[in-house]
Every structure is written in C-alpha cells, then in structure tokens.
C-alpha cells in the first residue's frame, strides 16, 4: 500500500513538472506582461497538433518538432502582444481595467483559435504512439514518454530560471513584475520587454504542448482545461512568483494523480478547484505571495 502510494506520488510529480512548465509560461504573461491570456491553452493545443502532424505524416520525432513549434509560437505571441494587446495596454487607465479588457479580448481569441483548429483538424481525439515503452525508476515502472516530458520540462524550467536570475534581461523582467512604473523610471523599455515576456510565455506553452501530445490524447477543445490549470497554479503560487508556480504545479500534479488513483481520472479539474479553494481560504495572496 505504501509502495503504491509512493508510486502514485512519483507519477504525480512527473505530471506536476509539466503543469509547472505551463504555469511558468502563464506567469510570464500574467505576472510580467500583465496580460490575462485566456487563449493561452490554445497555443498548447496548436503545438500538440503540430507534433502530431509532423510525427504521423513526416515521421519526425516530436522532440524535433519543438524546433519548429517553439519559435513559431514565440513569433505568434509576440504579434498577438504587439497588435492585439498593446492597444488595450495603451488605453487602460489602471491595472484592473487592463485585466478586464484583456480577459474579454483573449476570450474572443480563444474561440477564434479553437474554431479554426476544429475547422482544420476536426473535433476528433488524436493520439500517437511515441516512446510508450516502460522505464523503471526506483523500482517502479513509468512510461518513457512521461519521463522524457518531465526531464524536458525541468530543462526548460531551469533555462527560464537561469535567464531570470543570471542575466540583465532577466533582472529587467523581474523589475517589471514588481513595479512597471518603477521599471520605466530606471530606463527599462516596458513595452518591448512585456512583448518579449509574453512571447516567451507562449514559447513555453508550445513546448509543453509538444510534450503533452506524446502521452495524452488531445482534441481542439483541450486548451481551456490547461488555461484553467495554469491560472489556478499561478494564483495558488502567487502572481509573478516563479518558485510559487513550480511548487503549486507539482502540488497540483500530485493531487491529481492521487485523485485519479483513489477516485476517478475524470475529476481532475474538480481536484484543481478544490485545491485552489483550500489555498485561497488559507492564504488569499497565494502560497508565495508577500503583499
């Protein structure tokens, strides 16, 4: 029984690593660029489909398709910020109004992207078999694709962490997260940096989408669930706090994994919500929130 529990928890951590990656990307968009992007998950769905088509049609490894989908999504998100979000940023009086307007605008974008994907790819569930072989870790067996996804998610997470803490660019981004007005006063190009942070978040979610597609079946409606989970994790961990997103993401993964073992795998969103509520009631500013 105890062994089983450990197995489930490790499985949860592996899943949680991916959630953390999705949430860190969202945190770049929400915590740094100050845009609540409800269409976030749609880019994950897009990358998953890109991996699916390159794998089934061209027999290219999904890991290689990262080289395509990450830069493309980066560029697409940069354009979204530059041409769709920037006008809203310019006309917003305060942060609350900006949040309200971006929620509405990206809500529209969500339906456009999802509709386009349904039109192009049909609403069917897709699945492909890549590295389904079992691997043994600490005496437990897991699917190789999940472990690979976890490893790559860690790699991306570490890369983001290094950029944020070790470079001037990262320092500017962190300044942006703390105080956009102050950042501007010390000579940081707020709009340009925000666009890059937004695009970077998009690139991360594209990576996550490719990784997700290796072990989950997906369809054009999958995006909203990941957006939800990213939102929940970011709020739980504290807006703008990368470490918070990491911890909360792992927590969510473990909770979900426990739920699908003891209850049912169809209740994952309910678990995310329950966790969200508990954290909100205990710590309304998030696990790592300070203010």
């Amino acid at each position: 029984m105890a062994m089983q529990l450990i197995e489930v928890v490790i499985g949860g951590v592996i899943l949680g690593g991916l959630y953390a990656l999705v949430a860190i990307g969202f945190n770049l968009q929400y915590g740094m660029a100050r845009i609540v992007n409800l269409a976030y998950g749609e880019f994950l769905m897009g990358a998953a489909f890109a991996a699916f088509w390159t794998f089934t049609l061209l027999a290219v490894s999904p890991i290689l398709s990262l080289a395509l989908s990450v830069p493309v999504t980066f560029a697409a998100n940069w354009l979204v910020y530059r041409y769709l979000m920037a006008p809203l940023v310019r006309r917003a009086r305060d942060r609350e109004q900006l949040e309200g307007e971006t929620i509405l605008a990206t809500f529209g974008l969500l339906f456009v992207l999802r509709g386009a994907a349904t039109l192009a790819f049909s609403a069917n569930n897709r699945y492909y078999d890549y590295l389904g072989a079992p691997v043994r870790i600490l005496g437990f067996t897991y699917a190789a694709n999940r472990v690979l996804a976890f490893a790559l998610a860690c790699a991306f997470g570490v890369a983001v962490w290094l950029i944020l803490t070790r470079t001037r660019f990262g320092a500017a981004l962190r300044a942006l997260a703390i105080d956009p007005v102050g950042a501007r006063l010390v000579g940081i190009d707020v709009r340009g940096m925000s666009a890059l942070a937004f695009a970077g978040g998009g690139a991360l979610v594209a990576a996550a989408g490719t990784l997700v597609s290796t072990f989950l079946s997906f369809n054009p409606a999958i995006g909203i669930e990941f957006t939800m989970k990213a939102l929940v994790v970011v709020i739980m961990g504290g807006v703008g706090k990368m470490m918070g997103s990491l911890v909360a993401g792992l927590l969510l993964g473990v909770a979900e994994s426990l739920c699908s073992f003891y209850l049912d795998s169809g209740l994952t969103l309910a678990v995310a919500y329950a966790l969200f509520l508990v954290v909100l009631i205990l710590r309304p500013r998030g696990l790592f929130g300070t203010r």
Partner: protein
Amino acid sequence: MRARTAATAIAGPPLVLLVAILACLPWLLSDYELSLALHLLSYLTLTVAWAMFSGTTRLVSLATSAFFGVGMYTVAMLVKLMPLEAIFAVAAGIGAVLALVVGIVTLRISGMFFVIFGFGLSEMMRQLMVWWEINKTFTMGRYVRVNFDNTMIYEHLLGLCVLAFAAGFLLRRSRLGIAALVIGEDETVARQVGIDVPFVKLAIFVLSCVLMTLVGAVMAPRFGFINPNIAFNPLISFQVVIMALLGGLKRLWGPILGVLPLIALSETLEVEFPFWYSILLGLVFMAIVYFLPRGAVGLIDDAWERLGRPMELPRGYTGWLRDAGAGVARAWAWLSRPRTLPGGFTGPIEGWAKRQWRRLVPEER
C-alpha cells in the same frame, strides 16, 4: 422624485401593453418563428441577468453556462419524480446555493479570482456530471419527455424576462443597486463610504444566478435530450457576454440592442457557415471589445448628446463684418498700448543710480 414617477407613469401603460402583445404571440407565429422567439427570449433574459451583476459591479462573469446547465440538469434528473413547477423551485434553490458558495469564496477576495473561478466553473460542473452519469447512474444523457410545449415554454420565459427587467429596474433605483454602481466605479471609495462591499456583490450575484438557473430549467423541455456537454456548453457564457457588451451596460434596455442583432447573426451563421460559427463569433466579439467598448448604447448616447449640445448658429454676412471690426479694434488697442521709452546712453547710468539709492533707502513695504 416627482419626475421619476411621471416618467414611470408615462412609460408604464405602453410597456404593459407590449408585454400583453408579446404574451399573445405564440398563437400568431409559425412553429419556426416561435422557436426563434424562444431562442431570443432565453438569451435576452440571460443577458439582462448577466448585466444586472456584471454591468454594475464591472466583474466579468464567465459562469453563465454553469448556472444555465445546473437548471437544465435539475429538470433532467427530477422530471420523472416531481411536477415541473416544483422542479423549477428546486432548480432556483440549487442555483442560489451554488451562487452563494461561489460568491462567498471568491467575491470576498478579489475580482480576478472571481473571473477565474467562473471561467472554469462550467467545465468543472461538466466533468462532475459526466463522472456522476458514468459511475453512478450508468447513463450518458437523459430524455426530458414532459407535457410542456413551446407555447408554455414561451410564456414562462416571457415571465422570467419581465421579472429580470423588473428586478433590474427596481435595482437601479434601490440602495443596493446604487451601492453596486459605486463599487463598480471604485471599490475603495465604496468601502470608505460604508458600503458592505462583499454583501452587495453577493446579493446581486445570487439574484442574477437564480434567474440564469431558471432560464436553463425552463429551456430543458425544449432541448428534449440533455447530456453534460449540451447543458454546460461554454459557448452560452461567451454569447451572453458578447450580447451584453454589444448592447452596452449603461442602460437597462442595452441587452435588447445586443441580443437582437447577434441572434439574427448567429441564425444566419449557423445556417450558412456552420463550421465557421465559432471563429466568426470570436471575431465579432473582438471587434466589439476593440471598437465599441461602450456598446450600442454608447453610440446612441453619443448621438443623443450631440443633439442636445447647443448648436453653432449660422452667422450670415454680418459675421465677416464683425470679424473685420474686431480686427480693427485689436490693431487700435495694440497701437495705443503704453510704451516704455528708450533709455538712451544715460539709461544704464540712471538705472545704476536708482539701484544704489534703493540700497541706501529701502523701499517701504
């Protein structure tokens, strides 16, 4: 006060007449037109209910379909056990409890949490219902077969719609509604002037959600077959937000201006381009957010204001004469202004002497 009662007295009888005419419509319309009217009325009521909360407090609620679905599913589950009217009461109760729970947890903390929670609420309800159906009742979807035809649905919806408008009307004139407006303008100010912010938000939220739940319950017999994917369809939340925004939130009747064109549009789109529906609707929505932030009501208000503004009267040929006269007068004034005379070469010396004198004999203050 008096002006208000006078306006109510003038507008009252025609409105009652309008409702009476609308109530007779099922016997005048064809089946297709009646189903269109149902579609229209259900969205109108949802939108008015939505605007009641989100229009005043400015908190975007994306949870419409969750409550609509709860109403629908309550009917689907209880239809064999109880008379329909009793089920409506149960549905309203469930909707109120759900709204209370959601509101108590999220509205007290921050607007952002409320939006996020609402965004996922309908998806979570859908998952829960799917799980329940598969594991507990071993069905996927239910038939609602009940003696409740389109005419009855129409009359019930009309009643709900009138109720929603009346509630909105009274709310706008009550302390509660005005408190909500203050909260929407500035929450800090609202708290400072002694408004119990969480209570006001919660009360209006519950009211609006109960109305939405009832619309779902009344519409259930219309659908006939219901499964979680039909009941908790996120497109409903989306359409209601679009309609409310297109109409504009400032006025009570704003939703009418939003619902009519968008129902017409969606009817055409669904027939002409069924696959493009979601994309086109999304584009329309974005266009509204970007180009019509205040909705159709904003346009009308602007036009009205332009009409009411004092007009520039035409000046005729005497206008030019007056301008010329004013020019001459200005030139004359310039010529006759007081002038400092040039000081010459003794000027600086004089100035120096004056400064020295001032130093010795300070000017009296």
